[in-house]
């Protein structure tokens, strides 16, 4: 690279390039071919470039830039440091895969005109990158709001459906509650100095009270974007409503910007943390994770299932963040580094496998026009590419070796194992029990993923129309393969990946894992020492592969490889059609039964005398009824009161103004 061209310049050029691609789409709004086959691949190329330059930057010294746009006294400050670079890496590489997929995804006559869609999509990408680079509150908020707006329009692509408009409205509402909270947090952190740059905030010494206020406001604000309880309600509505590449982008990438924000505020801006901040984050995270995974197991819509699974993963990230904060507060930086590596690793891993799974649902949706699990099934026969690639996502999402999800889970559990060393009697007893909940969540995620995969791709086809399903096209396949590759590489080369992302940990905590990890060679992950814990995914995978191949060869050599095909055994029952399989609701029945108090269920059971017996179950969110509907009613009541003030007569309105003027004259003093 030329010495004159800094990494931050490359990223800025990428932002401009994305904006330009978006505008180019607007120039030819109806030319689908040009947009999907030229502009989206170009966007993917830019994404790969962003990822690559972030990768090359990692470990370097921070770079700053000041753009002469913005408020008169407050130009945009931008900064590229290692934390930003890790997340830019994520945005770049994952968005590259999604954009390639999107090139083959959009069809004629669906929702918004393709040109407009292209603009919104690339604007979304550019604003996400700007959020990561922003180095003052103003630039951050502008980019943050731009991201929210772009994603809002993307969610409401199919705005002809009332349900989708409603989802979009809910999303916008909660995004703004979050934005206000973030803004207030920044306000607290400037502590009246008027310096809204992040450098100014770092320089402030906040009292514990104000620091805690800033942290909690940030937790609420970023939690709203990430989907932490109780501000998660928009997520399962918005993700299914959006087109699949957009869901993938939101779930895989956008949620991570919220985690980025939390990391930035709690470890960089606000100063020394207090131990109970970590406990708060961990408690909220555990609740979110349990809630998310339980609800994901009972969903009947494949995208909602994945959306709840994202809530679960965000919960796990918050748990990891909380653990990092606790260790950091007690100055146990080595352990904090372990927990933070788990968080960063899980951000990357989740971005990969969740985007992969959402894109797979996109392919299924295109092939079958069906989102409901009850009407799918057996697609592995018609869509082998999508099915086998989805399997990679499913295994990673279930947190199983040797793919990416396991590495972060492993790191998180390892850091939990150290928590008995905490110098606090309650914490060192309660925190290991939190590990038990994390283990339960991970195991339940396996249940949800088996349900998702088994019902969509395996078994008999539940509808005759599924026989017409076709596999994903070449562009879609390329995008899926790219993301599956990310999932695989993250799973198999953890030591290498950690030695890259370690720069961010080192920047925030002053110490990292890389030195320890590098001691043992690239194939082995041993964050402390091999005696203490080690994991060698490549050898792990190789052993299983060798056992499979060798076993197969041996069996075929020693015995034979004959196969006969017959109908499935009917167990003596005559009817063994597709309807005899488990439905999505049937599969999750044990969960509903064991965790009954967690769900709000409406069930209809058939009676013996029904002429047309049917069974139905509807699972709803308790929080919706306990928190949101009462709030909505309260707001409604207040607004009814407000209408009384509006009498409609002009004299009354004049009176209001007049009274205000008088009061101000009386109260205001120079």
């Amino acid at each position, binding site marked *: 690279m030329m010495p004159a061209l800094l990494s931050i310049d490359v990223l800025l050029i990428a932002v401009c390039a994305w904006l330009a691609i978006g505008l180019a789409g607007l120039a030819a709004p109806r030319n689908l071919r040009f947009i999907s086959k030229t502009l989206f691949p170009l966007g993917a190329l830019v994404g790969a470039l962003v990822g690559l330059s972030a990768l090359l930057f990692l470990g370097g010294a921070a770079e700053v830039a000041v753009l002469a746009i913005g408020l008169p006294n407050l130009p945009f400050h931008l900064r590229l440091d290692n934390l930003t670079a890790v997340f830019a890496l994520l945005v770049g590489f994952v968005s590259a895969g999604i954009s390639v997929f999107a090139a083959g995804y959009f069809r004629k006559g669906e929702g918004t005109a393709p040109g407009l869609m292209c603009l919104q999509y690339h604007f979304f990408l550019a604003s996400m990158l700007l959020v990561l680079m922003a180095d003052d509150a103003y630039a951050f908020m502008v980019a943050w709001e731009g991201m929210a707006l772009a994603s809002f329009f993307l969610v409401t692509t199919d705005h002809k459906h009332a349900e989708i408009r409603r989802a979009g409205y809910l999303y916008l509402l909660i995004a703004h509650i979050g934005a206000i909270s973030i803004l207030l947090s920044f306000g607290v952190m400037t502590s009246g100095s008027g310096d809204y740059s992040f450098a100014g905030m770092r320089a402030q010494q906040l009292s514990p009270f104000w620091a805690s206020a800033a942290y909690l406001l940030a937790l609420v604000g970023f939690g709203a974007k990430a989907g932490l309880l109780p501000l998660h309600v928009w997520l399962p509505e918005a993700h299914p409503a959006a087109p699949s590449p957009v869901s993938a982008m939101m779930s895989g990438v956008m949620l991570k910007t919220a985690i980025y924000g939390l990391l930035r505020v709690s470890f960089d801006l606000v100063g020394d943390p207090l131990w109970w901040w970590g406990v708060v984050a961990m408690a909220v995270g555990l609740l979110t994770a349990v809630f998310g995974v339980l609800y994901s197991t009972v969903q009947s819509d494949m995208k909602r299932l994945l959306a709840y699974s994202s809530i679960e993963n965000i919960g796990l990230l918050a748990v990891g963040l909380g653990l990092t904060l606790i260790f950091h507060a007690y100055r146990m930086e080595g352990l904090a580094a372990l927990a933070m590596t788990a968080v960063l690793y899980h951000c990357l891993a989740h971005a990969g496998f969740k985007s992969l799974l959402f894109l797979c649902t996109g392919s299924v949706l295109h092939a079958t026009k069906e989102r409901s699990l009850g009407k799918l099934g057996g697609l592995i026969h018609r869509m082998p590419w999508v099915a086998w690639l989805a399997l990679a996502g499913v295994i990673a999402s279930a947190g199983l070796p040797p793919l990416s999800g396991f590495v972060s889970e492993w790191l998180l559990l390892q850091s939990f194992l150290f928590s008995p060393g905490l110098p606090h*009697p*309650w914490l060192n*007893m*309660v925190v290991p*029990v939190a590990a038990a909940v994390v283990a339960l969540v991970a195991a339940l995620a396996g249940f949800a993923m088996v349900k998702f995969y088994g019902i969509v791709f395996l078994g008999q086809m539940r509808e005759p129309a599924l026989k017409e399903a076709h596999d994903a096209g070449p562009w879609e396949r390329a995008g899926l393969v790219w993301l599956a590759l990310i999932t695989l590489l993250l799973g198999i080369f953890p030591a290498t990946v950690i030695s890259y992302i370690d720069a961010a940990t080192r920047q925030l905590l002053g110490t990292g894992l890389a030195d320890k990890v590098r001691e043992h060679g690239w194939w082995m992950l041993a964050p402390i020492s091999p005696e203490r814990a080690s994991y060698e995914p490549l050898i792990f995978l190789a052993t299983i592969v060798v056992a499979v191949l060798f076993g197969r060869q041996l069996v075929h050599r020693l015995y034979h490889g004959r196969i006969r095909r017959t109908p499935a055994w009917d167990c003596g029952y005559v009817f063994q059609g597709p309807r005899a399989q488990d439905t999505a609701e049937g599969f999750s029945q044990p969960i509903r039964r064991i965790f009954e108090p967690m769900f709000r269920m409406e069930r209809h059971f058939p009676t013996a005398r029904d002429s047309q017996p049917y069974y139905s179950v509807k699972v709803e969110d308790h929080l919706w009824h306990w928190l949101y509907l009462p709030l909505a009613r309260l707001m409604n009541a207040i607004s009814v009161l407000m209408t009384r003030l509006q009498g409609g007569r002009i004299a009354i309105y004049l009176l209001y103004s007049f009274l205000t003027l008088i009061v101000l004259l009386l109260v205001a003093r120079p």
Partner: protein
Amino acid sequence: MSATMPISAQLINLFASVILLLAFAMLAQRRVLTLINLFALQGLALCLATLVAAVSTGQTHLYYSAGLTLVLKVLLLPWILHRLVRKLNVKSEVEALINIPATMLVGIVLVMVAFNVALPISELSQTITRGTLGIALAVVLLAFLMMITRQKAITQVVGFLSMENGLFLAATSATYGMPMVVELGIALDVLVGVIILGVFFFQIRDQFDSLDIRHMENLKDN
């Protein structure tokens, strides 16, 4: 670290843990007779713990209290309870007010609370067995929980006795037992208490044809 602990302390810890384990088993138990057997086992573990403490410290009165525990809690009381159950034809299922897994979850929380509350107290104590104070407190709380969540009078008595086990363990672990007079007094109290309760059971059953304590709610004046 535990590596420096003498073997007697390790054994006492082991028996204390077994007592806690049995307290949990009692909480999870669905059958009345097994419940009584578990209580007998708990008494046995307590007896052994006291015996180990006696051997290691050489205090004679601990031998007596171990013997007392053996006679009273392992042999006599379980026998009386067995007879009561058979005489009264109690239904073999324990009826719980809250389902059992939920009770056990609450139990885990209670154990955590007990351990942490006992920590500063046990630091005041000088005995080798002070670590078990938390366990003793946990056993008391679990027994309390059992009394709250069970409906049968018999299970309540077992809970009460189990609580007494916990208290006894606490006394042994914190101060190597109470003075002999107090111990004898308590033993007599417990014995008389169980006998009186046995008499009550017959009365209750005659009155309501059941041992379900919810019937007692009808006794209030209104």
